[in-house]
Every structure is written in C-alpha cells, then in structure tokens.
C-alpha cells in the first residue's frame, strides 16, 4: 500500500519534472490514435455508403392485371417464406394507379387517356427487399416457375443485376483493403508507441542504474512507469475522444447532405463509445506497459 502510494507520487513527479518529454509522449499517442480513428471513420462511411446503395435496390414484381387476390396472397406468402427477404411492400391496383397519376401529373395526354378507360389497366405490384443484393437471383429463380407464369408478368431485377454485382465487388474490395490497412496501422502504431516509450526510458537510463545501486528492487523502479503509462494512455485517449467528437460535429452537416441523416457520425461515436474508447485504452495501455518492460529490461540487469 505504502509502495503503491509512493509509486503514484513518483509517477506524478516524473511527469511534471520531465514536462516537455511527457507532453511529447502524449502528443505522439494522440496523433497515433487519431490516425487509427480516421481509419475507423472511413470504414464506417464505406459501410454506410454501401448500405445506403443496397437499400435503394429492390425487386419489383408486377402482377398480371387479371391476377386474383388469392393468387397474389399465395405469391406473397411464398416470398415471405424466404429467410433472405427483409421487407415486402404491397401496392394494390388503386395505389399503383395513384402513384402513376402522380408521376405523370404534368402529362395531360396520359392522364386523359387513363380517364377514358373505365377499368384500371394496371396490375398490383410488390416491392421486395432482401438482406443481401446477392439474394435477388435466388428469389427471381424461385418465381420463374410455370405455376406463376400467368400471375407474374414482369420482374425488374434484370436491370439492376449488373449494379448489384458491381457493389458486391466494391464491398469485398473495400473490406480486403481495410483489413490490410488496419494491419499496417497496427504495426505502425506499435512501432510508434514502442519507440516513444523507449526514448522516454532511455533518457532515464542513468536514473534506473542509480536506483538499482541504492537498493531498489526492479518492481520499485518499474511501478512508477506503469502508473505513468496508465496516466499517459488515459489522457491521450480522452483528448482523442474529445477531438473526434469535435471533428464529428464539424463534419456531420456535410455528411447529412450525402446520407440524408443528421448527426450520423456523432451518433455513431456516442453509441460506440465503449468499443472505441475502451478497446483503444486497453490496447494502448498494454502496448505502453509492454514497451516499457521491454525497453527497461536492459537497464534493470545487474
């Protein structure tokens, strides 16, 4: 207990009496954390982008004008039985007509010719979304059977097939790229932390040998450094977090224009605060402690 108290006291003395070095260490840790977090944000944006493109893709199933309600209900329950299907929206003949009129409200010819018919010429429509763009093929195939030939007149899927394939390609490329980038950043982060700590320890090498000569145990010498690692990590993670929040506040208005969602980044950061702050704190802390052990080992001998 007494030695813990002393270790804390020594840690704070060390930080303040080597103030410029402490400042430098925190600065480097913050820069390192900021670059890692930039990567996190980029990953978040790409996943948002692909998600919003995926969301825009759907399959429209056009029913024949003559299809009965029972037949439509059967197809609908058949579609819903697929686990891949995430959403089914049904538009009745009347709703389709309404939409159609709305869409062509400034084209008098079309409206006039529609009025002339006493019966609604349009069939009902079903808009189906699946969880993954790749699932659309399966759905289309399942519907292309003789029993449904007379009920389903068209499926718009064919037009978007290429786009879906391209998105799938891009998504896997981005994922592969970000795995490589994450690995690379991890290595860089480790080297930066290790080197920063090594420099800090190296400036203290004379102190360490003197402490040994007057009878300090290795733990007595190490414990203030462990506490310093803790303090430096806490400060850098906190600074990084507030900088991220601040930057998110600045960027979000522009993000809102692209994704049509307000405070997207700010919300992402605050709803993932435990993951972001917690994991980075633990990783950086372990890295700094590990580095200081490694850097000190040589000076602690004899």
């Amino acid at each position, binding site marked *: 207990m007494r030695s813990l108290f002393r270790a804390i006291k020594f840690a704070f003395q060390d930080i303040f009496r080597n103030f410029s070095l402490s400042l430098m260490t925190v600065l480097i840790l913050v820069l390192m954390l900021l670059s890692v977090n930039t990567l996190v944000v980029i990953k978040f944006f790409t996943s948002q982008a692909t998600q919003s493109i995926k969301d825009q893709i759907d399959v429209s199933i056009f029913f024949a004008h003559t299809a009965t309600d029972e037949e439509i209900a059967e197809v609908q329950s058949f579609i819903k039985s697929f686990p891949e299907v995430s959403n089914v929206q049904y538009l009745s003949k009347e709703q389709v007509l309404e939409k159609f009129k709305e869409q062509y409200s400034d084209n008098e010819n079309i409206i006039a010719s529609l009025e002339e018919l006493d019966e609604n010429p349009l069939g009902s429509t079903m808009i189906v979304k699946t969880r993954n763009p790749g699932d659309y093929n399966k759905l289309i195939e399942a519907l292309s059977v003789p029993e449904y030939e007379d009920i389903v007149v068209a499926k718009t899927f064919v037009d978007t097939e290429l786009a879906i394939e391209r998105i799938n390609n891009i998504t896997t490329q981005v994922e592969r790229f970000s795995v490589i980038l994450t690995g690379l950043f991890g290595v860089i982060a480790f080297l930066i932390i290790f080197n920063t700590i090594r420099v800090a320890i190296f400036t203290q090498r004379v102190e360490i040998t*003197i402490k040994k000569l*007057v*009878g300090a145990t290795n733990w007595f010498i190490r414990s203030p450094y462990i506490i310093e690692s803790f303090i430096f990590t806490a400060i850098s993670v906190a600074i990084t977090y507030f900088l991220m929040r601040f930057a998110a506040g600045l960027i979000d208005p522009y993000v809102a224009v692209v994704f049509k969602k307000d405070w997207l980044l700010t919300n992402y950061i605050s709803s993932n605060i435990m993951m972001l702050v917690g994991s980075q704190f633990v990783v950086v802390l372990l890295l700094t402690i590990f580095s200081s052990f490694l850097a000190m080992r040589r000076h602690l001998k004899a």
Partner: protein
Amino acid sequence: MINLEGVTKRYNKQSTALEDIHLNVEPGEFVSIVGQSGSGKTTLVKLIIAEERATSGKVSIGDWDITRIPYRHVPLLRRQIGVIFQDFKLLDKKTIYENVAFALQVSGESGARIRTVIPRLLEIVGLPHKKNSYPHELSGGEQQRVAIARALVHRPKILVADEPTGNLDSINTQEIIEILKKINEFGTTVVLVTHNREVVNQMKRRVVTLDKGRLISDVKEGKYRL
C-alpha cells in the same frame, strides 16, 4: 567482514580485470585500495556490491556468500552496504532531500521515520540548508556529501567508496576524507579506492595495492608507493 578467496574476474577473453585475489577485511577496518588505471579497483568494488559476478573464487560479506547471489537478493545486499562514487550518482530530477529519502523508500520505510532520519543525516554532512536544492545547484563537494548521507541511511556496516574525491579539489577532498574517517570511528568498515597519494599517506592505515589485476602488496600501516 569482506572476504575474497582466490577471486578471478574475466570480462572477456582479452581482459582479465582481477586474478586470484585473496583479501580479508576485518570489521571496523579502514582499507585504502590503490593501483594504476585499469588495475581492477573498480572491478573489486563491483564484486562487493554484486554489480558483477566473479568468474571463479568466492566472495562473501560477513557470513553471506554472495558469489552467486540471486538477482532478487541483490537489493537486500545493497541496502546493507553504503556506496559512493567518483561521479556522485545522484538522481538529478530529485531534490537533495528526495535523493537521500529515496534510499529509505526502496525498503518501504514509513514516512514518519524518513522525516526524522533525513534531517539528521543532512545535519551530519553539513547540508541541512540545501535540502530543497537540486544536485546541479550544488558544488561537487556538496554533491559528494549528499551521496555520503544517502549511503548512510541504512546504518551500513560497510561503506565502499570508489575514488570519491576524484572530481574534487584538495579542500573538498580533505572534507570528504574527514567525514569518512568519522564514519569509520563510529564502527563502520570503510573501503576507499583512491589515486590520491596525500590522502593515503596521511591516513596511516592499511593499504592494498593492485597491479594488472593482481594484489601485489598489503601493508598494515602503508604508504602510497607506485
């Protein structure tokens, strides 16, 4: 008190620092170790405080055989032997008071005890008014006195000094030697490594001479002869 039996220290194939040294220092003795540069004096000190290990032979302190002392016991040994060096080896980011206190903190002494012991020690070496200064604000002689105060915190039975006056002028040298004498008078065994002819001659105590790693003379009331 300090006993070396046939001790040889070889750093590597080219350099043998000490060869077959037999040396016994009795409790309460004041021994000067002299010898030319490179004769192995510092190596001898390092063996006594377990900073280096003997290649062969046996080193013991009291009845403690430290020839192969495990690393985890080294701090215990260092708390029983006071050491001072030519370059003082003070912690330059700590004040004078903190430097001396550190040597007590390493063994987990209570704050209350530290607060009573340190002022008394600074009194003995004549530096109570400098307790809040940093080492670089002190003269060489003053820094060495701080180092002596630090060496004495555990009331060691042995004090080892490796050229403690090597960086000091003659007045400061005299002062340091007087302090060492006084410490010896109170019963502490003192081993003094020195180059200083005057110091050795005025002492009229035992002198051990090393030459190229060998012990070539050991005289009860010796003079500096090189």
